[in-house]
């Protein structure tokens, strides 16, 4: 079986310790997390965790089963790449002399990235949201200028169409 990256969207009860509980489950069972994010949802009773993991189908099914039996977990969905929209956020601080500014802004335009900050000490902060591959690509393009620091979020994902992770379909 091939190892693939999966995006698991997990609706959890908004209870204390839920992040520790879920991330602890991944850690102690040795599942490979590529990224993890937790966020609020439209209902304050629930939070949504988006986890990208790699593994073969059997491991992914096992992860889903382990998650589903947790008291705090309301629902788990394994999003296919075509069936969902997926975004990460990148903030990247690079070296940028005054003479380089315009070419970097050109790159940003192509990537639909935003320049958030230009400082007189020859640095610039750029923001990009996008899928993992697009973010990787921008980082590669900017690397020659000198990456001073970057902050990259875990992914957020929603399924396309009418489906939701809500427990009550009438919502």
């Amino acid at each position, binding site marked *: 079986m091939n190892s693939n990256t999966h995006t698991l969207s997990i609706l959890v009860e908004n209870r*204390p310790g839920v992040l520790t509980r879920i991330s*602890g489950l991944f850690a102690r069972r040795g599942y490979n997390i590529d990224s993890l994010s937790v966020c609020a949802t439209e209902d304050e009773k629930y939070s949504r965790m988006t986890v990208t993991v790699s593994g073969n189908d059997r491991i992914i099914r096992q992860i889903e*089963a382990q998650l589903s039996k947790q008291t705090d977990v309301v629902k788990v969905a394994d999003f296919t790449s075509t069936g969902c929209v997926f975004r990460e956020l990148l903030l990247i601080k690079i070296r940028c002399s005054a003479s380089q500014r315009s070419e970097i802004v050109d790159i940003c335009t192509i990537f639909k990235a935003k320049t958030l900050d230009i400082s007189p000490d020859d640095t610039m902060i750029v923001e990009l949201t996008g899928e993992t591959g697009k973010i990787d690509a921008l980082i590669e393009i900017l690397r020659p200028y000198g990456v001073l620091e970057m902050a990259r979020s875990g992914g957020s994902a929603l399924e396309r169409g009418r489906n939701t992770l809500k427990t009550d379909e009438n919502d």
Partner: protein
Amino acid sequence: MKLKGSEILIRELVRHGTDTVFGYPGNSILSLYDALLDHGEIRHFLPADERGAVFMAEGYARATGKAGVCIATSGPGATNIVTGIADAFSDSIPLVAITGNAPLDMLGHDGFQEVDTTGITMPITKYNYIVKDVSVLSETVSEAFHIALSGRRGPVLIDVPSNVFDEYAEYETKDFAENKLSFDPAELKAAIETINSSKRPLIYAGGGVIAAKASEYVAELSEKLCAPVGVSLKGIGSIDADDKRYIGPGTHANEVAKRALREADLLISIGARFSSKATEKSPYSKNLRLLHLDIDASEIDKIHFADARLLGDVAITLPALTKGVDKRNNDWFNNSDRFENATYSMPFQYIKCLNRRFGNKQLVTTDVGQHQLWVANYYDFSAPDRFLSSCGLGAMGFGIGAAAGAAIATGERVLYVTGDGSFNMCFNELATIVKYNLPVTIIIMNNSSLGMIREVQKRYYRGRYTDSDVFSPDYVALARSFGIDDAFVVKNPKELERLIFSEDFGKTINSTRPVLIDCRTDKNQKIL
């Protein structure tokens, strides 16, 4: 009506059928103890240390099927029950553990006897709580019992900062509906087809059968399929050992079970989880197919890929399965050589002698080591919930607390079989057995060594016996120092036979008096 947190907690325990708790007082839990004094409907038992409390609660739960309740104070009290909680988690035993903690405004200050109890126990509980608001205490206790007892059972811990016991809240009760467990008819259909297309089905029954009270259904399936039945350690007693198709536990020494596994073409696993001890070095045919029945979806495909699955409560799925399969008239497996290869070794004779004296329905607890497997292999049980042992975690020191808890729960005499290594870990609980005058018969298989470790060292470490010798005290003198006058040494199975079949001994075990018998064995006996 506004009540104090301690009062709310106790009322919720009572409301959930708790008549017995096992615990040890300490500073942060004293408010609860104070309130206990006003509640004669709950019996409290004090162990020698908190490990004893949690193992007693486990013995109580294992013998009755009810949730065991244990109480410990913050810090070392909480950490002392960690092993027992892990044990309950590993063996799916319903347990509600209540711990005190530092008051809310002192949490996280690293004060006296403060540890992060919920952090420590998170991976070894089905769920745990820290109750910071007295108004949710009642609901929390109710949910804790619900979680401990529903689905695949297990331990739940409630950590309570000490001030919460003393605060007042409106006492309201909340009940959690039992989840209705159904099954997928398509899975049932596929399971029936899988069985019908097999030639040599072998049934493997685990602890899930006993938890679901589904023993009779295993016998019915076996009868209809003419299929042999093996058990996991946890599944011992799930089928009558006298059943003509019983092939014993899947232990290393059980050659008949190994042969069945080699020859079978379908393994029907019922409420068992293929622990490493059950599956290591078990040779099975490459063509062996697996039909896996379990209540926990995460156990299916976890260790072995299942060719067919049937998710659900085996008390519901098994009868449906039995009804659907074709009846067979011929046995494919001959188990008549079950004890042919048994060596009639000293331990074998000791255990068989105990079995003859105490019978197949005797409550037996064990610790962990050679003696545990001697009992598992050689003691025949004809009823579930009779063999109480730390099967998954393998916690030495389990047996004495479990024996005390089981004796308290049932009022029956309990046979506690241990080794000198295990007994030395927890014999402080003799104090508990004597204090409450519990009818426990203690059998120490005494070889002055950690027999199992020694065996492994001999086999895999070229006989380099690093620290596997044990100092064995004079156990008779030790027992007498606790006030156990019925304490004996026997040098061989013949002496044991003479002792336990004597008239005097009969009188003793018909009383509630504890008994200790130091059974000398030699350290070169093997089990692996």
